[in-house]
């Protein structure tokens, strides 16, 4: 289903409740009555077109906003992506970590396997954090700088250097490394972890890991679908402009 701004947000959430953390990132919280998406965006001072694009991108993995791509400002997109990072690091990861902790407490007579899972998850969190930091420190500022140059029509000299030293294509390639560890973690829990006392807790952990994985891959998809192609277009346009100066 394609989500449209004239729809009631409540209907959208009924249809796909996994969008709740997404709307939260925009500062929209449950309890919005019968308001439409458009009305909610107006009261919250949100860019409605962008809000709808993000909802659709999460809701339907086949969705691709080809026509709207031009209208999206990277500055707005980056702000959203940063909010998502906070959600991953401050909500999702600690939540799973505390569930693992709880599982350990239940299995005091045989702690070692759970200790291993805990360490493994810690390692994973550190790696995810590094990945996120690299994006926040290098990729996003670069994208915003590029957009500023592009929109203002100026061509600062350091842009040329930046484009050459760290083009977005280099970033694209390093994107998928963090995923492998999460995949391993799922497999270890499903196949190899000695069955714990609480099936329920194990299921909860697994459910959270699957949901983290899905959210991360959708996050990456938004970067691949919107951020990367936009930056590539601007890189090319600015390069052409640079050559004209010479």
């Amino acid at each position: 289903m394609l989500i449209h701004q004239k729809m009631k947000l409540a209907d959208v959430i009924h249809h796909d409740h996994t969008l709740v953390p997404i709307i939260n990132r925009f500062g929209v919280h449950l309890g919005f009555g019968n308001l439409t998406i458009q009305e909610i965006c107006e009261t919250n001072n949100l860019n409605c077109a962008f809000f709808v694009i993000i909802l659709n991108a999460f809701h339907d993995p086949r969705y691709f906003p080809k026509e709207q791509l031009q209208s999206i400002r990277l500055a707005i997109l980056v702000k959203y992506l940063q909010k998502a990072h906070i959600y991953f690091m401050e909500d999702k990861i600690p939540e799973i970590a505390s569930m693992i902790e709880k599982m350990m407490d239940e299995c005091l007579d045989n702690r070692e396997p759970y200790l291993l899972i805990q360490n493994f998850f810690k390692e994973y969190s550190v790696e995810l954090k590094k990945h996120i930091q690299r994006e926040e420190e290098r990729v996003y500022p670069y994208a915003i700088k590029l957009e500023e140059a592009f929109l203002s029509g100026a061509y600062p000299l350091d842009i040329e250097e930046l484009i050459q030293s760290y083009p977005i294509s280099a970033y694209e390639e390093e994107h998928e490394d963090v995923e492998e560890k999460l995949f391993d973690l799922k497999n270890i829990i499903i196949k190899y972890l000695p069955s714990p006392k609480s099936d329920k807790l194990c299921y909860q952990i697994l459910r959270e890991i699957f949901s983290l994985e899905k959210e991360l891959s959708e996050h990456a998809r938004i970067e691949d679908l919107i951020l990367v192609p936009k930056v590539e277009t601007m890189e090319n346009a600015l390069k052409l402009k640079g050559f004209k100066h010479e």
Partner: protein
Amino acid sequence: MSEIKTVVVVEGNYLMQTGLEAMLLELPAVMVVKSFMGDEMNLAGFIRKQQADAIILNPFSLKEDPVAFLRNLEQKGEWIVFGMMEKDAPSNIKSHFSQILYTSDTKFDLQNKIRSALGIDAQSDQQSLLSEREVTILKQVVLGLTNQEIADKLFISVHTVTTHRKNINRKLGIKTVSGLTVYAIMNHMVSMEEVDHSLK
């Protein structure tokens, strides 16, 4: 049952793409990882990332030269590439595919071609237990040895070590060294102390 097979679809016609996906999902243990329209930038690169077992490709959907594109794909992975086209497509295009699905094929034909090419009905002869040799190599990997060091220690070639490692990853479904470490300690192949010691 054999392992789950993943298929990538490249088809510019939306109805065809949706139909292909529905047809594939009826097959046992087959998953469609991703569908492309064929006009994406750096399509070959995206496909490579999917780790597919098979690709169903309509060569006429491609923005780029299909022959060069195919050559590029074939070099890069061990997948089966099916051509998806009409029966009267030019033979110089057909000749580049070893497997062809025709738009006029019946559902039965299509699914049979895919079943046999992917070996879906074949008995799985893949052992899931590690061999003694693989256990030896797994231990060394977990203790932090490089492929070269393992090769020297066991008097085998680096190539053999990589082959063993690939098989270990496939059998266990674990790819990272830290994941393998968790597995090895849980199964008492190495102790936590040994691993800690090797890190120092």
